[in-house]
């Protein structure tokens, strides 16, 4: 895996939002949602991004999808810098990069049936048409654990877990290479989460997909990710292989975050490590390599 080529490269990405404006519309206060983030995602791997709400993890995902124009920095996809591209030039990338979001209730148009929902992106990107399209959609449905008979049904006829399967089928319909998964399982029932995670892993193996997996459920992120980045206050504070990060966290925030995971074992004594930003002296320190493939923003 280490020799695999880098598919996505993020360099010093910044995304600032105007928090307050004066009467002339000039920005007086800036919210630095993402403030200088650099990392790479290798072809075929799952890169996990964790952090608390407001840490900027979803904003990074949206920048990679070019749902946001970023303030500064570069995002290279397969060697091509995305921010410079116009709508037309961006089109092929909009096919190659797909997304799955948290809420399967709001991300599917309620007025479209399954065939239309999954077929729409195929139309847009000219992947297939007519009866070939119908067959392709039916095949996809089976791949995500649904049935051919579901083609003419509407989203409200499905449970949350099934809707998330539909979202996944829709994302995969245009044969993407890279999928940004933003909290794809957090709205699902506990007993259904494992089904979807297993399916994401199977599809990755079958289609050679690369995932950016954004989530706050740390135990699931560890399970699915090859490498993990920890975000805090708009910056990455630590990046390492999953096991290395969980076994040997170096940044005090990572340590606090991992120690706060409630372990499903009544015998496991919780040793909490508190995190106090105000007494942390390493504010603003850049990420540096502290071990092979292990980066931490510590002095």
């Amino acid at each position, binding site marked *: 895996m280490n020799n695999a080529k880098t598919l996505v490269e993020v360099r010093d990405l910044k995304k600032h939002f105007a928090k307050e404006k004066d009467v002339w519309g000039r920005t007086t206060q800036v919210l630095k949602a993402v403030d200088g983030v650099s990392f790479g995602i290798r072809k075929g791997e799952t890169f996990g991004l964790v952090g*608390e*709400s407001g840490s900027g993890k979803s904003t990074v995902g949206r920048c990679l999808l070019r749902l946001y124009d970023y303030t500064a920095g570069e995002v290279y996809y397969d060697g091509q810098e995305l921010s410079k591209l116009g709508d037309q030039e961006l089109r092929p990338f909009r096919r190659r990069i797909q997304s799955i979001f948290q809420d399967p209730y709001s991300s599917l148009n309620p007025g479209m049936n399954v065939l239309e929902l999954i077929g729409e992106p195929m139309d847009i990107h000219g992947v297939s048409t007519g009866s070939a399209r119908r067959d392709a959609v039916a095949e996809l449905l089976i791949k995500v654990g649904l049935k051919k008979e579901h083609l003419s049904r509407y989203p409200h006829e499905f*449970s*949350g*877990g*099934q809707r998330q399967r539909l979202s996944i089928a829709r994302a995969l319909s245009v044969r993407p290479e890279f999928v940004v998964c933003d909290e794809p399982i957090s709205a699902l*029932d*506990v*007993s*259904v*989460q*494992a*089904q979807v*995670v*297993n399916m994401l*892993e199977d599809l990755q193996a079958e289609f050679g997909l690369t995932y950016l997996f954004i989530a*706050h459920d*740390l*135990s*699931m992120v*560890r*399970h699915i990710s090859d490498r993990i980045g920890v975000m805090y206050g708009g910056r990455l504070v630590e990046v390492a292989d*999953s*096991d290395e990060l969980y076994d040997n966290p170096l940044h005090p925030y990572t340590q*606090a*975050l991992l*120690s*706060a*995971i*409630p*372990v*499903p*074992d*009544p*015998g*496991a004594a*919780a040793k*909490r490590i508190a*995190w106090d930003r105000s007494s942390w002296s390493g504010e603003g320190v850049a990420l540096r390599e502290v071990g092979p493939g292990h980066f931490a923003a510590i002095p």
Partner: protein
Amino acid sequence: MTERLLEMEDLRVSFYSRDGENQAVRGVSLHVDAGETVGIVGESGSGKSVTAKAALGLIGPPGKVIGGDIRYRGESLLGWSDGRWRKLRGNRIAMVFQDPMTALNPVKKIGAQMTEVIRRHRGLGKAEARREAADKLREVGISEPERRLDQYPHEFSGGMRQRVMIAMALSCEPELLLADEPTTALDVTIQAQILDLLKDIKARSNMGIVLITHDLGVVAQVCTRVVVMYGGMVMEEGAVEDIFYRAGHPYTQGLLKSVPKRGGGLRERLVPIEGTPPDLLDPPPGCPFIERCPHAFGKCVERPPLFELGDGHRALCWLHDAEHSAAKVPGAAAGGTDAETVGERGASDE
């Protein structure tokens, strides 16, 4: 001896709509004693929140309690007037919900909201009530309580607001605290603080706490006893160790197996429970887990009784029926339930 606070017997609650009768709670029996923390675990639609609402007298149309009994300290609560319920809710049973922002008045200072509650329920004077409010805020770990009392809810972070809610609940010195997903909306580090706070409250008082959650990790960390709900029924109940180490119901076993293990191999495959929860508009007459259960057999189309597996450990599953255990190797129950345990303890119909 244990002091029994809340007791439910064969409780049934249904919601009526155009689609029909949604049988949200279908014969739930459970109890909560003083000094214990009971976790009610279940996924959405399991009936856990409806059960809690029923205990507070908060089931209103289109919902209705259609059967069974709810008792508080031995006295039946059904048929009580709103006024009586309100008194019970304020003075003896307090509650904390998932989203503190919807429970707090956004245009009123925290101090005013807290003193109002304290004065109404405990009949204290203004100054005394304010002192009491400050004490409670300090108790839940909010620094500079005097200054914070003069702030509005939006000036508090999510975790701090949940602390305020808990302080408010505690200010009436209740005997029973019901917390419905109190940490679900919070970040994991803040969640840890709130859970520590609940543990701390339990250690300091003899309060009974009911924690409703879908998170097995949360349950393992703070509860002494666990009630597992599914499809509107109690599938299993027992001490926290019974549930996590000796789970007797295939649903509980499945839930435990479907979450990643700490320290488990990175690419160890998860074992999901296939299928989806039952439709409560038309629930299966027997075990609600029948369609997803890897061990289902002929008998499961009938509703099982709760079989006694040990002291206070019960499971609603025919696998523990003496007849079945004799006929088949009960080890088939898999997932940690070894053949001997089930066989020895036998199963007594209740």
